[in-house]
């Protein structure tokens, strides 16, 4: 269909992940008050970034096959 959906999904989640993690890292404890002392922005940002990278990897491997 011209566009592998894994590319935009991977790119968007990598971007959001890096943004969140960086914001969490910079904001530190001030942010964590709300989420019961966990710096959720940092950790969840890393989760998103890993997921995004995995999607991009899958898309890249599929492209190699064609």
């Amino acid at each position, binding site marked *: *269909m*011209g*566009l592998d959906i894994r590319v935009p999904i991977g790119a968007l989640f990598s971007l*959001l992940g890096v*943004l969140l993690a960086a914001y969490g890292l910079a904001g530190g404890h001030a942010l964590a008050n*709300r989420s019961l002392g966990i710096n*959720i*922005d940092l950790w*969840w940002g890393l989760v998103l970034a890993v997921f995004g990278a995995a999607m991009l990897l899958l898309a890249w491997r599929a492209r190699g096959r064609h």
Partner: protein
Amino acid sequence: MHPKAIDWIIMGAYFAFVLGIGAALKRSMRTSTDFFLSGRSMPAWIAGLAFISANLGAQEVIGMAASGAKYGMATSQFYWVGAIPAMVFLGVFMMPFYYGSRARSVPEYLKLRFDEKTRGLNAITFAVMTVFSSGISLYALALLLRLLLGWDFNTSVALSALIVLVYIFLGGLTSAIYNEVLQFFLIVFGFAPLVLIGLKDVGGWQGLVAGLHTVAQTRGYAPNAWLSTWGVMGSPRDNPMGIDWFSMAMGLGFVLSFGYWCTDFLVVQRALAADSMDSARRTPLIAAVPKMLFPFLVILPGMIAIAATVHGGASGLTLPRKADGQLNYNMVVPLMLGHYFPNGLLGLGLTALMASFMTGMAGNVTAFNTVSTYDIYQAYIRRDASDAHYLTVGRLATVVGIALSVAAAYVTNRFSNIMDLLQLLFAFVNAPLFATFLLGMFWKRASGHGAFAGLLAGTAAAAVHHGLTLPVGRTPGIKGGWIAVMHLYPSQMAQNFWTAIYAFTVCLLVTIAVSLATRPRPEQELVGLVYSLTPREHTSERRWYRRPALLGACVLAAAVVLNVMFW
């Protein structure tokens, strides 16, 4: 709730991607099949995620969380009983006829199997219904944006309608499906932290159980009423839903769920876009796997919120009350987003909510443009035009569909009781549908006159049943009893389930009776449309997890395990 720059950047990035996907797909939209059915080229996993996502609009997300607070674990019956069996049935038994007949829509299947008038009835009611559903999505989104971000109603409606318009106009169904897949992951990643932090707040699973015992006991139920499903359905008095096991199993588990998942073109269209018969059959089966786990994502937040409100949590989360003093259950999701999410994650959560509103709307618009082009325009206005002509008509139908949705959103805003009335009428029209499809696919004797008469009689039966019954504690009117009150139901849900059961039964009996009295279609015309006249579909797949029947059996077994675990 105070969004900061980081939250706006996250929302902005999502919208840029949505529009970018539409623009990137523009070049692949060459024929009407590309536009309406994604050129029948979707791999099963994409079609499957879109299948479930198209149904997971934001009203669903907010409504399920609200029901989780109101009724507890029993809400998951809408997934484990009210969705999974029907999705398996669609994939294993019905998809061979939908996909194999090359019908381009559900109404078109009715035309091939029965006759023109049955198709017309279904196409027109469906088109009107999708426009109103899309309008309700738009209205609900605007209300939420006003509440959360203080946006003006007009601005919200205009902005969201414009974005949906652009991406469907450019990329057709493919755009809608790709955005549904994107939304699926946004909902998962946007809501999972809500559940994780919420659980920590109420003291983990143990704490949640203790909290829900308190909730049940303070309301006069057995301690496990918020944690059980079938176990508390011996009598309507034992559970907050006011439902007994029989109406749950028959009304929701059979009539309503099969009627929705197996006949609603909004979801079936996603499977028709699949790249092969095997993929089309696997679409609802793949969708069933995340569907089964969604209660933990969308219902659990409600259960956490009510436990925290009644029993108390570490951070003091409390549901707000409405003007009449009742807890405002619809606030579960907005409240928890604002309470637990710091800036940054808040942006992600809001984006997930907005994405589900917009895909809810886009799903309706893509179904509307297909049915109005193929089943209304091509069937009744211009039969033999070029494919390019129908592609243009499809794009125009998209614009018209969105314009009508905007109008419907304003009507809802001005006269909310008109919308209640319409939704009631749609429920009457939908209730008998599954009987028609069941007989059409599995009884070769069923005739066009029979199907048409059955549908009308079933709809009438639904209306009459509603007019003669009333949920306890309601006044006659929109809630029922507008003819005379002959029977009282313990809850509105029980009344809805029984309305569906009556409509289904009447449609089934009338279709059989009229079919026996009229001439059936010759058997050679029904090959590929009826079970007994169609060669069995043999899958060429060797890998077990790709074989529809086996995959379906595994999905059902998993659903049974969940039912037993949370008995």
